[in-house]
């Protein structure tokens, strides 16, 4: 047994070495072959992706590629398609269509390989393939997480609002969820038609779905979500949802939302929410927020006080009047930062004190700091 075990381990080690070397060799060869296949078409690819192919000669050359060059070109064009917009993107999609890549991608959405399915979804999205929306909607339930993510991304690029309810439901799925980030981005690409789906999603039991819906409602100024956003801010059990709702109200709120936001700057609210709401009052831009912000200048939380002062400066003349010549660190900092942003000269108080810090440390702690701040501190492998 003991004779056999080292032999097995040695064989496994040699196998792994062969795998490492083989992987490197194959990758290098694949990259070289791909470069060789693309070389004759490099100028055409550059011209099309730069939008310098009005006559269509370069597109014709690309469309005429065949053999092993065609899949290599399709890959390269898909890669480029993710980086360009407008006419160059349309031209690249046109060549991909001529190669039959879009039809193949629709078929590939059912391919046994998850990589093929994910790449197919990506290509369909980048080409804005409306005919594939139903299939992409199905792919939101794919067993591979990456395919689901690609499908969500693709649906956002296609921009069909009809799939928004399915997309939001997929975010909250406990079985096969899609990540919130790509879902939110996809929803933002679907236009105003998702209003109803967003309102429904704000009622969803999953806090992640509510967060996504609140964020997209705010970013897209979906005003019909406002009543529900106010409720979420007031009562949601999840702090992230409440903060996102406050941020959304800052985008799309109205005069009456001043009261709603101000209520959550009260001392009994969680500190992060108080700060978010104070900032939101400034961003909302309603002068009626001034009486609510003024008392916050004396808040024991210096960050909140500074945010209140900054918010007052955002509210124009009424806010600036309320801030007046008021002293204190919060007001002075907000004013200084506003001046710096406006490019106004201010007296530098730091330069004269530059040397003050040289050696202020407790000599007993200096060694501690040296190690903790400079040496091998914390970088535990």
């Amino acid at each position, binding site marked *: 047994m003991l004779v056999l075990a080292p032999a097995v381990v040695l064989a496994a080690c040699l196998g792994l070495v062969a795998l490492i070397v083989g992987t490197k060799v194959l990758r290098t060869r694949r990259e070289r072959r791909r470069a060789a296949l693309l070389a004759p078409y490099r100028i055409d690819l550059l011209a099309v992706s730069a939008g310098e192919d009005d006559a269509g000669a370069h597109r014709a050359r690309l469309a005429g590629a065949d053999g092993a060059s065609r899949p290599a070109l399709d890959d390269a064009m898909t890669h480029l398609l993710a980086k360009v917009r407008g006419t160059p993107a349309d031209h690249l999609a046109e060549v991909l269509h001529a190669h039959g890549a879009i039809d193949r991608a629709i078929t590939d959405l059912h391919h046994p390989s998850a990589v093929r399915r994910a790449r197919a979804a990506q290509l369909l999205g980048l080409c804005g393939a409306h005919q594939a929306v139903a299939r992409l909607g199905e792919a939101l339930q794919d067993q591979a997480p990456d395919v689901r993510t690609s499908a969500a*991304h693709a649906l956002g690029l296609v921009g069909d609002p009809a799939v928004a309810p399915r997309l939001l439901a997929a975010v909250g799925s406990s079985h096969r969820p899609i990540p919130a980030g790509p879902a939110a*981005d996809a929803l933002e690409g679907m236009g105003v038609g998702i209003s109803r789906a967003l309102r429904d999603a704000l009622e969803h039991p999953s806090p992640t779905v509510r*967060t996504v819906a609140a964020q997209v409602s705010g970013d897209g100024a979906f005003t019909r979500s406002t009543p529900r956003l106010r409720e979420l801010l007031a009562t949601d059990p999840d702090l992230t949802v409440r903060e996102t709702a406050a941020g959304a109200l800052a985008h799309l709120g109205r005069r009456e939302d001043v009261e709603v936001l101000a209520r959550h700057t009260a001392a009994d609210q969680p500190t992060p929410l108080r700060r978010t709401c104070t900032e939101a009052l400034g961003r909302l831009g309603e002068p009626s927020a001034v009486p609510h912000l003024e008392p916050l200048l004396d808040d024991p939380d210096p960050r909140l006080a500074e945010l209140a002062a900054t918010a007052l400066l955002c509210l124009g003349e009424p806010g600036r009047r309320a801030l007046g010549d008021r002293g204190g660190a919060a007001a002075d900092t907000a004013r200084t930062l506003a001046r710096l942003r406006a490019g106004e000269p201010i007296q530098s108080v730091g330069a004269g004190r530059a040397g003050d810090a040289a050696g202020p440390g407790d000599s007993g702690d200096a*060694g501690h700091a040296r190690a903790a701040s400079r040496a091998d501190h914390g*970088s*535990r492998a």
Partner: protein
Amino acid sequence: MTWDGFVDGLRAGVVWLMAVTSVPILVYFLIINLSYLLLIVLASLDFRADHRRRESEVTAFGGALTPGVSLLVPAYNEAAGIVVSVQALLSLRYPRHEVVVVDDGSTDGTFEQLLEAFDLVEVPRELPRDVPVRARVLDVHVPRDGRTRLVVVRKENSGRSEALNVGLNAATEPLVAMIDADSILEPDGLLRVTQPFTDDPTRVVAAGGAIRPVNGSRVVSGRIVDVRMPRQWLARVQVVEYLRAFLLGRTGWSRSGALILISGAFGIFRRDVVVEVGGLDPTSIGEDFELVLRIHRRMRDEGRDYRVAFVPEPVSWTEVPTTAAVLRNQRRRWHRGLWETLWAYRGMVRPRYGRVGLVALPYYWVFELFAPLLELFGIVVVPLALLLGVVDVPYAVLFLLLAYGLAVLVTLAAMAAEEWSFHRHDRWRDLGLTLLASVVENIGYRQLTVWWRLEGWWASLRGKKQVWGVMTRAGFEEPAP
């Protein structure tokens, strides 16, 4: 007692010792290697997904839900590289981030360098005391242009953890990334490491990223332009160690939902959660480990649905020790920190703490803390037994071959994962050196680190005050060949 009597007594003692310990050691040996195998399998599932993601090239970075990040940079006597570091951090590809440098009472002109490079002006900002700090904050500065998102806070010298706590108080974004002033972040590193927060915004509370040694690589303006193996064998072996620790260890633990360690060189956290648990513990030596455990404990105690994630893709590059003296100090401190933190959180080894309490912590106790003790036992007893003729020489050789062969196998698995997923080392020479380093580390290096780790543990048990060493850095900027 005659010499022969002494030898006979010793022989009898060794025989007895081997008889008593052989079965437990064999079981330990089997379990530790099976656990490595399991971690490899778990990690490879992640790499498979990662490979697919690269193939499908979905890049949804910087979208609507991408949270703002405050990069907290504690700096003590970093005058030589602080400006380049801060410039590199400010130019990271990310939609919303600020850099908060906390000058921890530097005496080498670190602040003056920043003052000049960024034309800083003092603002009368009072920092909140969201987490308690003992040291006095001296002043706060921002660039005069009013646009560059840099805040420089000067404080009295009191150590890295306190500096990070000051940075935490000064931070204004919902996420805080703790990063060493001499670390180099990948241009997309921040986007990658915040991806778990974007994908799961209500549950993810902390995330770590893979860290790699930068020694030997070519760095220009705070960016790595050519990844190479270091010139010194000591650093080369650490490249292999880091690969193994991050590519298999952390990834596997993350996959199993029980990641309890995020490296202090780069970690990213929800600010509100770090504030809630009270920030970093300035009295802890293993402050990175301690913070993550405290977060786990708080989340579990409150029955919250949460996740600690790990991003296996290289995020940050750091300089590793190149002298035995500095490495010794580092390993002593790491093991001491491990012991003190595990001891402080021994109460978490309970079903109430789920996989963290039932799997991860017991694993760290048995296979991380006690591993050097067991290895030392082997290093001492096996040669002694051979000398006294109580074990068969071929048997001992085969056992050693098996033990070190398995260690090499685990490293090779990490290298295979690296080659499959990230392949950051382009040169064949570097691949050859890495393969060689995976064997070389078992000859001398491993035995030395066993001793150093035990030294750290012993110093703690004796209540000896931790003596911090100085790391002499060679610096990143190397001339082009």
